[in-house]
């Protein structure tokens, strides 16, 4: 005999808790936070997501170098290890440093082989002067969070790529593009999805059927060939920024369907709620009914839908760029970086080229966990 009473009990408990005093005057956001904060995995994910977006926001400052700075002497340089203490004739002291490279060319394969050179001590530090950059394209600055004391020294924390560019700097700059693609793309999808889904759910009838069939059609088209087609149709001579926005639009043209469905479903069920009927019988106008009485019940669901849609956007961008049809260099995104990891040579000689892939996995997982947590907490009044 399974118990049909668990959920009712929970509602009772919330009631009792409320009457116990602490939540008497709490607004719905307080209640949502209350529920969300009990979801541990989602809390961890929230911290990770915030950190990733902070990295994206302060990319120029956090990256030791400009993403385009190349160094032909250090192609495929391996990651350097940070040493905290230096031992020399004066004894052992605290002096964080990395070691420079001894390089030689393998006569058989013509590969450049790197060995750490204990003679070449490269002192590193926080807030060092380095390459000048324009912070957010506005302020001139030259301080970097972490870097070599002398900006001419090589510094490859997670290795270098085939042109001797610092992978860490490129990954950090890629974070900005990849994460913003997700955010802006979802905003576009949200606008389309909210309008079409709202009309579909509130009006019902013929217009609902038409919109639903369109959504089904779009979702039935295989996405990769569709993207490929659309991306191939883009003129090659467009500037990178224009391509960036074109990719955004292509991604959101498909992304809106999911959000439209969520919104429609909520509108359909809200329309029959007693409190909506009650508002209608108060003589409330249709516009006010939707904006004032129905929309607030949707906010939390929309936030959940957004957090779950962002990772799809990021994955889509990564896939497109990986195939060489998305963003084009010199724009750096995780997908663009992964292009370098396409061949066998990368896997055998420079496995660190996969680091942007790890970033994708971490970001997508964190956003998914966060979305799950928000979705569970979205309706604090759920019975």
């Amino acid at each position, binding site marked *: *005999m*399974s*118990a*049909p*009473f*668990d959920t009712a*009990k929970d509602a*009772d*408990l*919330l*009631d*009792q*808790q*409320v*009457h*116990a005093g*602490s*939540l*008497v*005057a*709490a*607004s*719905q956001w307080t*209640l949502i936070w209350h529920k969300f904060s009990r979801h541990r995995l989602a809390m961890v994910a929230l911290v990770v997501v915030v950190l990733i977006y902070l990295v994206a926001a302060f990319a120029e400052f956090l990256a030791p170098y400009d993403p385009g700075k190349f160094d032909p002497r250090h192609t495929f340089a391996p990651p350097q290890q940070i040493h905290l203490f230096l031992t020399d004739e004066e004894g052992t002291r605290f002096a964080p440093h990395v070691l420079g490279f001894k390089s030689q060319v393998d006569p058989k394969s013509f590969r450049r082989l790197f060995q750490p050179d204990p003679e070449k001590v490269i002192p590193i530090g926080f807030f060092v002067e380095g390459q000048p950059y324009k912070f957010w394209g506005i302020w001139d600055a030259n301080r970097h969070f972490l870097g070599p004391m002398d900006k001419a020294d090589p510094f490859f924390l997670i290795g270098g790529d085939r042109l001797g560019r610092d992978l860490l700097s490129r990954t950090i700059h890629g974070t900005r593009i990849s994460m913003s693609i997700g955010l802006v793309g979802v905003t576009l999808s949200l606008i389309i999805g909210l309008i079409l889904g709202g009309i579909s759910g509130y009006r019902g009838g013929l217009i609902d059927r038409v919109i639903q069939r369109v959504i089904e059609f779009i979702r039935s088209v295989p996405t990769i060939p569709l993207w490929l087609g659309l991306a191939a149709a883009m003129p090659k001579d467009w500037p990178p920024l224009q391509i960036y926005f074109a990719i955004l639009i292509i991604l959101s043209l498909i992304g809106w369907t999911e959000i439209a469905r969520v919104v429609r479903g909520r509108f359909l069920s809200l329309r029959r*709620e*007693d*409190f*909506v*009927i*009650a*508002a*209608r*019988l*108060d*003589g*409330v*106008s249709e516009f*006010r009914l939707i904006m004032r*009485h129905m929309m*607030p*019940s949707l906010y939390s669901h929309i936030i959940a839908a957004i957090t779950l849609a962002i990772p799809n956007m990021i994955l889509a961008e990564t896939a497109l760029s990986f195939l060489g049809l998305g963003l084009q260099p010199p724009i750096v995104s995780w997908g663009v970086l992964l292009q370098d990891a396409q061949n066998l040579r990368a896997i055998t000689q420079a496995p660190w080229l996969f680091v942007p892939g790890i970033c994708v996995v971490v970001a997508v997982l964190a956003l998914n966990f966060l979305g799950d947590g928000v979705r569970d907490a979205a309706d604090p*009044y759920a019975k």
Partner: protein
Amino acid sequence: MSDETILKVRNLSVDFPIQKSVVHAVKNVSFDLKRGETLCVVGESGSGKSVTARAILQLVAKPGAINGGQILLDTGSGEVDIVKLGSRGLAIREVRGRRIAMIFQEPMTSLSPVHTIGHQIIETILLHEKVSKEEARKRAAALLGRVRIPEPEKALDRYSFEFSGGMRQRAMIAMALSCNPEILIADEPTTALDVTTQAEILSLIRELQRDRGMAVLFITHDMGVVAQIADRVMVMFRGEKVEEAGVFDLFERPQQAYTRALLGSVLKLETPAPRPPRPTAEKPIAKIENLELHFPLNAGFMGRPTNYLKAIDGVSLTINQGETVGVVGESGSGKTTLGRTLLRVYDPTGGQVMYWPSNGEPVDIATLNKAGMKSLYGEVRMVFQDPHSSLNPRMTIYQTISEPLRTNTDMTERQMMDRVSELLSRVGLPPDIGDRYPHAFSGGQRQRISIARAVAVRPRLIIADEPTSALDVSLRHQVLDLMRDLQNEYGLSYLFISHDISVIRYFCDRVAVMKNGKIVEVGDVVQICEQPQHEYTQSLIGAVPRPDPRLRADAPQ
């Protein structure tokens, strides 16, 4: 009735930890259950009566846990402490179903919809006893026959959704009885049922209990049901046992203040509230004539429906100024639909509803256009059944109550604030709670807020759709008295929809009895309640359990 005790509960405590605090759902409750007797546990919502029942079978929902005490079950060969058995394992499963069976409030969710009724009963029998499949099937059919399900052999192969609510509850009882339990725990088994079905199920339980000498622990909130079936009664309040007594003693000589208050509020509803006499010349405010609402059931040939669901099937009813007209009926009778159709939540498919506005000519609501309806929303208002769903959880009390003022009057924000505080104190709530959200209030308080919203714009007619059904009995007459006061103050008319004869009798002047979308009888409330003419009304009135054990067949003289 033997005096042998089969179940002893001693100092039972159940706690529900939430956040940093702990809710003591059951506090130190002790009672005995004897073989062959019916012990009713009665209390209002939150009294811990259901939790007590579930604790006996170790079915307390997480995070709740039994926190002390003993539940001693006499197995014939010594006593077993159920608390020590834990909530899983062979030992407790041996007790569940086999020695103690349970039936729940909602028969729809307690039966699996993907297995036949027979499959579920046979499975239970096979689980607990070593018999062949054929033997189990025979026994299952006999059980269904025993609970008076017609054609038991055929019923075995049906699914639960093919049964009505009452039939499902019978099947549930058959399943509970399949292993000859010594104790039957019934947790509000008739609350979700119509009153005529409730009477059948109650008499069935009582009959089965006598035949088998089962002990029954019956959980209910309904004093009428208690009076009908209990041998002894235990009253609970906020997790504590208030009083335990024989049913006749309890009703005649309640010892505790809480029991007296509870009985008092039940008995208050037994007699009609004093009403001023109706004027001889009635002036109608609304006149429903041959109202029809038919929903097409299938598209049929060429999109023309061939069959209709007649939710309202030719209803005529007049509501006079200052009068309270009750509409009573069982679920599915169309009474709620009728109320909603009057405000055009659904558009009627036929007939008319004449309404006499405060100024101007009478209008036909059934065919009124949007603008015309809008002007009526301030005069005709609605109070909903469920105060939890009719208040927007995301709006404060002030926002909710001021909404009709905002759309129907041109008051300033300042004036609306004053009016809302005035309304709040009028309905008996503190005037300064406008900035709180609905979740901060109990059901009764929320219903008061709903009433404040309804009367905010000085309406003339209020359609009240079961406004007291979701409330505890001690709150019902309070809400009704408030509505009565407001009626006298504002000269309101009510269309009062309810399934509960006692609130209708308490509150209404006239009453219409609905069945299958039709009105079968209309008349003065006293006349309908005392001398019902129509056969259906008679069975409806007769089935209402009266809170007076002396009316029972086995009452001592």
